């Protein structure tokens, strides 16, 4: 997962945030300090079978 800084309390806004193992990521997201930059992967569209 990649994160972007959203508060000057963590660093420069917009910079990538690289968390260490001891960082509570959920708390930082919930507090609005970072944002996830990972896009949700869309599943491949499947066409309905014509044989049904």
């Amino acid at each position: 997962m990649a994160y972007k800084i959203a508060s000057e309390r963590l660093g420069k806004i917009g910079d990538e945030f690289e968390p260490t193992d001891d960082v509570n990521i959920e708390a930082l997201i919930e507090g609005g300090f970072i944002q996830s930059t990972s896009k949700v992967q869309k599943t491949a569209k499947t066409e309905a079978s014509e044989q049904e």
Partner: protein
Amino acid sequence: MATSTYLQSPSVVINSVDVSDQTTSATFTRVIEQLEKTAFGSTNRSYTSGLENSTLTVTLYQSFAASETYATLAALVGTNVTVSVAPASGAQSATNPKFTLTGAYLESLPLVAGSYGQLSTIDITFTGGAYTVAIV
């Protein structure tokens, strides 16, 4: 000549968030529990060292604004978190050591605490975790 530390611009970081400008007081105490080893025949009590149980207590202005005190702490109650304090905000050095507790536990968070006409402040304590000090 005696010298003293003058806490004018210390650095206080909680879960990577710099809360120095919300902090009015910080007390970092290194604690290693004492275990009594006094036995029959002793003429005085004696002790040996047990587990480390250091604490960091900070006083913060309470604020519910974005990116401030409540936003920093709300999700940390009941969790383990890394906290650090340095006497000054500059680079860490032998004269500006950075004290850290990794995996300290935040048991409680006062939500509303204050008096009429006064700025609201809260005291919180982080307990336990692994103690380290960095000087370079």
